């Protein structure tokens, strides 16, 4: 099959990749070593491959790589600060025991990030709605609710814009 070049910003760096038109963003990212996006179902049901495209949370198995041409893609790896420090959202998940097997975690973290960017102090209802497309079989979500609340508080303590990635 003919390959095409797609160019986009991945975690702040410009990338240029050759893909088949039918290749999903999920498979493309994994191909270049971005392993935080997982193949939990590859049919848009589980949320383990959630990324940000520009500022909107997307299941990367549900979009083709060619659709992100010229756009910005952020994954969980991209939230880590240059000095290796974890993002407050990632840290809050650890602090609240919201991680068990860890397979859903990167997707959960990205969905949380998208939520807190648009609603820094979300109600429980907003949290439930924002994470409804991300399945977790280990934690029962209750610790994740705590983590989101804690992340919200931690991010408010950061200087303006410091938590933006």
């Amino acid at each position, binding site marked *: 099959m003919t390959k095409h070049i797609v160019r986009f910003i991945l975690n702040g760096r410009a990338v240029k990749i050759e893909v088949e038109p039918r290749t999903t963003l999920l498979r493309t990212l994994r191909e270049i070593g971005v392993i935080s996006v997982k193949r939990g179902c590859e049919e848009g049901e589980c949320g383990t491959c959630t990324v940000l495209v520009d500022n909107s949370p997307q299941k990367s198995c549900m979009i083709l790589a060619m659709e992100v041409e010229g756009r910005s893609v952020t994954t969980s790896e991209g939230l880590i600060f240059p000095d290796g420090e974890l993002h407050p959202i990632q840290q809050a998940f650890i602090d609240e025991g919201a991680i068990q097997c860890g397979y859903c975690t990167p997707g959960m973290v990205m969905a949380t990030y998208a939520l807190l960017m648009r609603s820094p102090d979300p109600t429980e209802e907003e949290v439930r709605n924002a994470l409804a497309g991300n399945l977790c*079989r280990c934690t029962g979500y209750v610790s994740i609710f705590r983590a989101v609340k804690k992340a919200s508080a931690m991010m408010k303590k950061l200087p303006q814009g410091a938590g933006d990635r």
Partner: protein
Amino acid sequence: MRQIKTKTGIGRWLPRKFDREKAAGTLEFTDDLRFGPELLHARAVRSTIARGRILSIDYEDALKVDGVIKVVVGKDFPHHFGLYLKDRTPMAIGQVRYVGESVALVVAESEDAAEEGAAHVKVEYDELEPVFDPVKAATNNDILVHPDLHKYDHVGFVTPQPNTNIATWFRIRRGEVDKAFKETDHFFEETVTCPQIAHGFLETHCCICKHEKASPELTIWTSAQSAFTVREIIAKGIGYPLNSVRVIAPPIGGGFGGKAGMTIEALCLAAAMDPDIKGRPVKLFIPREEVMISSWVRQGYVARIELAVSKEGKIQAIRNSFWFDTGVSAEYGANPVRSAGYTSTGAYYIPNVWTDCYAVYTNKPFGGAYRGFGLPEFMGALELVIDTVANKLGIDPVEFRKRNLLKKGLPTCTGMPMHDHGLESIITKVAQKINYDQKEEPIRPGWKRGKGIALAIKAPAIPADASSSAIVKINGDGTIEVLAATMDMGQGTYSAFAQMVSEEIGVPYDWIKVHFPDTKSHPYDWQTVASRSTWSMGMAVKQAAISAREQIIKLYSEFWEVPEDCISIEYGSVICSKLGKSERLDERIQNGFKMPDGILKGGPIIGTGSFTPPDIVYPDLETGQSPKSVVHFTVGAVGIDVEVDPGTGQIVVNNVAAGYDVGKAISPVGIMGQIEGGTIQGISACLMESMSYDEHGRLLTPDFTDYKIATTMDVPSSVDAFWEEVPEELSPYGNRGVGEHSMISPAPALNNAVYDALGIRIHSYPLSRERVFKAVRALSNGEKDFWEWPYELEQVFRRAKKSWE
């Protein structure tokens, strides 16, 4: 004198091992490993019918697909595998037994080519009549799922019944049951049904096998709970020595029993051992839909429970008939059936017991291990019956439970005396936490509110000789590496082990690493199942840590010329306060100490520990009796406060409390996580989970759109989790397992709460909205009980349901 000081020992709340990498997304699971261009990919061709003879497999067209290099079929790899009963071949040979069974394996240079190739394989069948109903399969031998049952190898405690569909039959015969039923004041008979359910782990099965080109050496990277058991099953199946099979188990994305024993490894091996493929690694990644149609499930069941109760409200006798739907294979599923059987009086003392538990073959995917291993099934039924009986007798269900409690010293159904535990206090606390005694108004106008309680009990269902071993290595800078072949799949055992090592050696938790299993380097452990690891492997880890500490102290004693009891290890430093000395552990721990006599002594310090349960006796095959049938029980209780919308059948959990007697909390954050997660998994199973099949045995729920598991929209805001600590005698620190127990009783507690809310008993799980709505309708027609049968079950069970009336 206490020789160790640490702030990060047992009982502390600490960040869990590998959480950082998991949060970052950089932890490599099996699918994330890279093997380069030599990697081949395999894809299974799966049966489209439930039962039939294979007439032909035509893969000419598949071989023409660009990139396809080989197609392997069942007869090319005719080895039998199985943990307890070798009733499985990796691919169907001659006949298929369920929709989804693999009949061929296409191997290609890319995943896409393998998938494309698989679509081009044509299989012709001579279709035969299947059987899906476990009761029908158990009571009518016209259709035999395994006509060769008598030929299969099996362990002694599994009892296949040749020329039937019964893969194992577990019995308890205790006391004078007939007499007790004849003379009783009250007789009750109830039935409960539950369909098969899926594990729903988010990481699907994935495995890579590589067989060396020129020597019989095999390496397997696999998403498995139990590296050593995979090794053993594979090695026995293909006749290799154990040290020629290396199993590497990277982190796994959830297990819940679904990755216990051996799963897809033998199928992948069928390709990797092919003469044309040997030398190249072959990857078998199972997509979600294939996981759902083809792999392990929790067994469905039909339960009939009869109780004889005295006018004082004491249970005098129980008669249990449990038909487990084990599907096409009982290689693992035979054992949860036993586990249910030898715990078949639940958390109650009942003097006269008659139990028949059957694993019944049907033409469906196979039942295996699932969190709780027979007890969510058994207690899912028994706790409804207990509640129903209490209500019928006009005794408060909590009081009825306490009156019949299996207290310390009383015999379980196998005759083994119960050990001490904190269940009575847990029941009281659970009841308080949900305001059980108060009838509260519904929060939502027009809804009905109710409260329910259920008890939990379970022992590790392990072979009598399930062993563990561990190595603790002290590095030349005082850091420590622990080799303990437990799989940390999110339950947090590596954190617990590191805390134990910190407790024993006095070095900080952060200095301690625990590695994921590799059979080449790790010492043996049986399996990461049965809530056994912090207990069984904990025994080995503690022993290994003590052994390492003793070596350190002995060396320092000689080096400093002071008695051993003058030396302590505090926060990573070796201290002798008498001499005023304090030294960090350093390279001398590795390279030896120049002793006062000028001789270099020591060398790398390695602590080792081994453990095997000393005194388990398998229950007698005829009577189920044993002086010590299990190592111990973990007990607990769940209380749930729900509201039901009679207009739609929707159920909302207002509040849930769950407490367990963990003996000693080693890693509280881990226990909290296990209780919270298991409680929600149990609620999810109760409300929405069911593997549903059409009349041809085709799964109607092959993905997360149709197979519902709880999302953020379906769960309460919090779980009121707590624990008691009545210590276990034979245990590293008095601790008992709790990983599975949290899933045992949420479902019956919820069901009991719904009964309390509505006044009608729903005897069939799950309590889906449609079913609850139908029950509300039945109630308005004067019904007090509601059943829905997944298949045309035997009429006898319909009749049995109300025979006391």
